[in-house]
């Protein structure tokens, strides 16, 4: 893969990040061929940082979380690359070591629609305390005490510990699954569409909770979503995924104000804004089929700025601030920061 690095890009990556992936690949087997859901992902997340992974459905963003937490379906065709977490390559761990040392202890997760996956016949408090009993071997009483503490953290009244999931509203259940992910005090929490099924007020309240946890506990977050506006509530950095790859990875300020990649620009223009009379645009065409990805730029078919070189695989370019973009268009480094700034 062609990297064009400027000198100062290396400086941005000086401190050892909390998590770093190198050429992470997760392909699935299917009757019609290999699904390249995660196809060479490189990204890093520092401590106390929230990285938002944006993308349309079918771009592979949920598969990326599966690859990070090694929660794989049976039809894996290829699972390779490196995931460095707290200084070691967790891809090298055995399944048992991974389960014991990484999953939930180091990295936990709130799955998509997790609030609807709570066990209906077990009290919420028991379910939230369970990771401590399984992963830490704590006693029931001690784990419940900690669960009560975590309840307070996410804004749930502690008397909800003894309630059953059906007695809780959607927002409360979402807080409960968040508590379940936080109860072991992991360094990194992966959130897959944590607010997409919630109302706007509840959504805003949950985002407040996430902000507070990030500020007080210093937890890092990977937020997977297709909701651009809500993601800006917490993002330090934004990674945009398309066809199994990252097409742009940049600071929130850069991405939300002047995105570089044509896809990023279209995506930002497609977001309806409350106080803006400009019509949102729609992105023409369909996302590429992960079974049959084009050899060149994967966005080329929908790209308004397509030219001849787009038929060959584009390089990743890194600007002085460490923002990366995958594409031919921004070839001279100077246009990268200036093209859409004003």
């Amino acid at each position: 893969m062609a990297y064009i690095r400027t000198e100062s890009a290396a400086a941005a990556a000086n401190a050892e990040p909390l998590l770093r992936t190198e050429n992470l690949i997760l392909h699935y087997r299917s009757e019609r061929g290999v699904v390249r859901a995660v196809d060479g992902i490189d990204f890093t997340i520092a401590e106390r940082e929230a990285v938002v992974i944006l993308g349309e459905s079918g771009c592979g963003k949920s598969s990326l979380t599966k690859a990070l937490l090694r929660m794989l379906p049976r039809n894996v065709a290829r699972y390779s690359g490196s995931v460095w977490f707290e200084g070691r390559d967790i891809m090298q761990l055995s399944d048992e070591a991974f389960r014991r040392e990484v999953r939930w202890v180091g990295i936990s997760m709130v799955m998509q629609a997790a609030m609807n996956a709570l066990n209906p016949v077990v009290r919420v408090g028991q379910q939230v305390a369970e990771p401590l009993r399984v992963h830490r071997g704590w006693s029931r009483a001690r784990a419940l005490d900690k669960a009560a503490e975590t309840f307070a953290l996410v804004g749930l009244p502690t008397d909800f510990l003894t309630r059953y999931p059906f007695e809780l509203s959607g927002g409360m259940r979402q807080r409960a699954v968040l508590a379940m992910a936080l109860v072991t005090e992991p360094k990194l929490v992966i959130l897959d569409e944590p607010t997409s099924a919630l109302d706007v007020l509840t959504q805003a309240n949950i985002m407040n909770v996430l902000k507070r946890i990030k500020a007080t506990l210093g937890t890092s977050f990977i937020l997977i979503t297709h909701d651009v506006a809500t993601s800006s509530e917490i993002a330090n950095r934004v990674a945009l995924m398309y066809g199994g790859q990252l097409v742009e990875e940049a600071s929130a300020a850069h991405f939300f104000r002047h995105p570089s990649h044509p896809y990023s620009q279209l995506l930002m223009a497609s977001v309806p804004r409350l106080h803006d009379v400009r019509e949102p645009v729609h992105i023409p065409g369909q996302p590429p089929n992960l079974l049959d990805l084009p050899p060149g730029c994967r966005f080329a078919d929908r790209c308004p700025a397509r030219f001849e070189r787009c038929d060959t695989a584009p390089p990743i370019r890194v600007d002085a601030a460490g923002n990366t973009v995958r594409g031919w268009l921004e070839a001279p480094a100077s246009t990268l920061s200036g093209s859409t700034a004003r």
Partner: protein
Amino acid sequence: MSAQTAAGQTVEAAPTSTGEQREVLLAARDLHTWFELRRWGVIRIGHVRAVDGVDFELHRGETVAFVGESGCGKSSLARTLLGLHRPTRGQVIFEGRDLGTLDAAGWRTHRARVGYVQQDPYGALAPFMNVRRILSEPLIVNGVDDPAERDRQVRQVLEEVRLLPADDFLGKFPHMLSGGQQQRVVIARALILKPALIIADEPVSMLDASVRVEILALLRDVQRARGLTLAFITHDLSTVRYFAERIFVMYAGRIIEQAPVDRLLDAPQHPYTQALLAAIPDPDPDNATHYKDIPGGEPPSLLTPPPGCRFHPRCPMAIAGRCEREVPPEVTVIVGHRVTCWLYVPSAVATPDSATADGTGYMTGHAS
């Protein structure tokens, strides 16, 4: 706001932003839809008051949005307008006829005159029917017996929702279509009987952001081209500006504010509407630097709604001694903008124990 009427509409005067001069297509009068709740199927516990006293009028050719959180009764309202629920009290008057008085034939006509676009397109389409069958079915039910005529109409409506070329889609089953295409089929099915009113219940909430815009644009184009009345039910205020003319904000079974869209977004009056607007982010990196000032709590139970104003337990501006006791009246702020809130009743705000009501100018104290 531009007049969104197609040629051939019977609208003589240019409608005002409130649409007052247009012909009334549908009116709801004191509409209540309650659901009886029983424990173990026998013991009556009470009623879920999903729609609890709603009055409004929809004019021919206009697009309105009903906005509210889940559980505010907006979907129950939609289903009552469609005739899927019988109102507990009150009336729905559609094209001059009270739905409560319809016989079986009347209902069939009504259902042909009102199209329904469901929230989940995949769930709304029978998985064992191909697109041709899905779209032919309403025609068969409504007596279009000639297969050639059905084929013509199906192709026409597919063209209208831009599923082209039609031959590529006619034989496809729902699972072979993308979410956006499925929703286009649902819209086509709602359109095929040439209804006067389309009720779209969260038509894009299950779709991807980029597809959403497309589907909303399609609905708007169809509405304009056919001069349809479109009632759009959503929890997402950020999309309504692009095509609704008026907005109704619902809370706990009632309409608490209604106004032309620009007016509502720029000068929301009800504290709930203000909170709703404040909660919706625009994509801005500065959002991450501060907490949102949002009332906590949850929408109330519709089984035992709070007395007085239903928003008072969460309201930052509740007037003690008033809001929790008495149901607020509907106040006209300016023509076409009505709000159901005590803050806009001068006598209520001026009472001595209303120290929490601010920002209204009534509470200017003396510098003693």
